[in-house]
């Protein structure tokens, strides 16, 4: 009888039930979209922030004091210590290896460079003094577990734009900074002669680099070439690491040495920038790992703010969805006052009537919530695609939250009119008063 009553209510007024269901579905769709976008947005934004470049700098522990002005190191190349390049695969073996999104070692050496095309009949070729930065463009790193990983300066310094193409790893090629190119008359395809007192090389220019920093006045070449010039095969002097991190909170800023073992475990297993720095230090012996504070702290501050802002807006959208759904289910109960009156007149208790109506509403909530969820996922895909170019990942958490929310909200929305309806005497309602 109970099931028959519910089924009857649906089949008797299909259009009406469809309307209420549609309102429910629409509200839940918006809630789903907002929820899945903001669940996803933290990770997405953290990844976006990596376009600001490296947030960790690794230098040799035993290094002498750098004499660096405006990004140019004025120490002689043979001064200071170098670290072995072969160790770098270990970076992808640390606990937070998947958070290391890119790294690139660098070796710098002063050189004199000239090209034939800058030579004319009146002026013989003049060697221009500049720096050669040896690094990885797209280097295949072999990781101790047997797999490989491609990384390089393109990942750590995404704002470096190359007109032309990057050099090939290990090839006798290079890219030149745009102001050096203008100064020395170098074009893409030129053969660049690079001289130092010890070596004499000819490199093919494959691209013009513009980065907005001191690199605009330098030559960037495969690291092997710079190592050869510096006389330090297989070594690097500086390593830039770009890692996804969790903004440092009160706990993250504490000195790890002062933590209790359980707290230390928690600190170590949280992707704070300082715990990633420690993990890198553990796999690279003799290295000094420093946090580039400007980048790390700025990122942390903005991420925290944006996250709380988005949660707030999401909460507002959930609230609005709840109101919309609650209002429409309240309306559908109010309209059935006559029916309730009749049921009571025929001897149904308030409990039975309430139970019957609640079951109907719940059924509607499940169907509408599920429909709204699928609609909302589509909406979230569109929004995510438009803003980040990637659709947010599917999450069961959202589905659970949405169905639960739909059920609670419809129940709450119908509870108030139901209570009022149960207090009415059947007779006046049936008379139409």
């Amino acid at each position: 009888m109970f099931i028959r009553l519910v089924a009857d209510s649906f089949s008797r007024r299909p259009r009406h039930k469809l309307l209420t269901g549609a309102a429910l579905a629409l509200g839940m769709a918006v809630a789903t979209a907002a929820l899945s976008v903001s669940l996803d947005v933290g990770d997405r934004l953290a990844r976006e922030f990596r376009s600001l470049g490296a947030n960790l700098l690794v230098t040799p522990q035993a290094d002498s004091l750098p004499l660096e002005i405006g990004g140019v190191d004025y120490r002689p190349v043979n001064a200071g210590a170098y670290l072995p390049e072969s160790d770098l695969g270990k970076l992808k073996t640390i606990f937070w290896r998947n958070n290391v999104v890119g790294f690139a070692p660098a070796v710098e050496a002063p050189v004199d460079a000239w090209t034939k095309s800058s030579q004319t009949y009146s002026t013989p070729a003049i060697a221009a003094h500049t720096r050669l930065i040896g690094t990885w463009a797209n280097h295949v790193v072999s990781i101790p577990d047997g797999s490989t990983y491609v990384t390089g300066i393109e990942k750590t310094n995404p704002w470096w734009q190359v007109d032309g193409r990057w050099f090939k790893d290990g090839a006798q090629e290079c890219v030149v900074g745009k102001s050096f190119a203008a100064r020395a008359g170098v074009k893409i395809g030129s053969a660049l002669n690079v001289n130092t007192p010890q070596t004499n090389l000819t490199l093919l220019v494959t691209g013009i680099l513009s980065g907005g920093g001191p690199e605009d006045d330098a030559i960037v070449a495969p690291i092997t070439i710079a190592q050869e010039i510096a006389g330090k095969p297989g070594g690097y002097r500086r390593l830039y690491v770009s890692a996804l991190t969790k903004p440092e909170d009160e706990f993250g800023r504490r000195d790890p040495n002062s933590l209790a073992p359980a707290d230390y475990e928690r600190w170590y297993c949280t992707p704070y920038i300082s715990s990633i720095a420690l993990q890198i230090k553990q796999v690279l012996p003799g290295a000094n790992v420093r946090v580039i504070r400007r980048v790390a702290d700025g990122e942390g501050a903005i991420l925290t703010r944006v996250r709380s802002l988005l949660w707030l807006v999401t909460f507002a959208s959930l609230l609005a969805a709840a109101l919309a759904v609650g209002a429409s289910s309240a309306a559908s109960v109010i309209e059935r006052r006559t029916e309730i009156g009749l049921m009571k007149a025929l001897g149904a208790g308030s409990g039975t009537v309430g139970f019957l109506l609640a079951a109907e509403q719940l059924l509607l909530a499940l169907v509408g919530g599920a429909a709204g969820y699928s609609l909302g996922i589509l909406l979230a895909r569109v929004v995510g695609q438009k803003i980040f170019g990637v659709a947010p990942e599917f999450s069961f958490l959202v589905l659970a939250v949405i169905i639960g929310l739909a059920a609670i909200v419809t129940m709450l929305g119908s509870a108030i009119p139901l209570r009022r309806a149960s207090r009415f005497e059947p007779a006046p309602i049936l008379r139409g008063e």
Partner: protein
Amino acid sequence: MPDRKMFWRIMRRLLSANRGRLFVILLALGAGAAITSALLNLQVDAKRRLTAEFRAFGANVVIAPSDSGASAESAQFLNDSLFADLAKGMDSSTIPKAEFLYGIVDAARVPAAKDQKDGASTKVILAGFDYTGSRPEQVLPPALVAAAQKVASSDTRACEVGQRAAVTLELSSGDTVSLSNGSRQVSCLVEVLPSIGGAEDSQVFLNLRATQTLLDQPGRISLIQLSVPGTPQQIENHLASLRRLPDAEVRPIRQFTEGEAKIYNRISGILSATVGLVLVLTALCVMAAMTNVAMERRNDVGLMKAIGGATRRVLRLFLAEAAILGLTGGILGAAVGILLSMWLGKAVFGIAARPRLIVYPVAVALTIIVAIAGAFPLRRLASIRPAAVFRGEA
């Protein structure tokens, strides 16, 4: 005009007939308007606030001599007066900026007691610096600003030593270090900086005037750093105006200007999308409530038609009622929205959002439109036959 008088009289009765229901409708409309205006206000404010947050990344523009970077030997300098001129410029006066003069000097620890021996002399980069603007931590490392403000109160000459330089020179805060360049020499009280992660860690910072004297470069500086606030477009405009400076090259620090532009666009995009969704929902919610009201008026419509009211006039009456409700609810809600957005701004950014007046007329207008749109199902009532209503048929 008796017609108009009657109109208002009916209107008064319609509104005051059921106080409880009036309250519920005003609540729905007001809540809608409050959410709308709070979110619109917060969105406008948040975008502005975000650009200010980006200043945490420090300087985004460098002014250097036009042919800098060629080599160390031919290092060029800017004239000190350029910095003062920048500060005088109209829109540049509030932008945080710092000037630097770099040079290589020999540094050694001065023993505190006679029986200790001198520390070994090491070559370090000496950075002379000075800054203007109300928020120097937006252009200089915050740790350096804090240290500089701390030593500024003392009478003795002090210098801030980067963490790596301090380790190499075996210095700790409170020691004295002597800096020498040929025959010129100064000594200063050391304040050790925490690790910053950049080149600053291996530098020694000193007051600009003292550095100019020590390096024998009076009135000269190596470069100027600025922290230009605003949206990517505003920064670009500011750069264009700076590029008119003579003998100087203005370089945006692409790492930050480009990254910031990208992130700003993403964040403002996501914010707009979510706010848009919420507004659509709120409109739906208000419309649902209004539709409810309209449907409850079946009996009224039936009676009016029975005593000879033309459908158009009856309809006009109910639409006017919806508009009045929308206006009242909208104004009340917008007022709540102001307070709400100020509180939300405080919760997220630590500073109350500044109310933007344009938001409120927009929110009120939107509420009225939605209220009228919600009352539109009344049109269906035009086809109602009064007799059917009175018989109590649905």
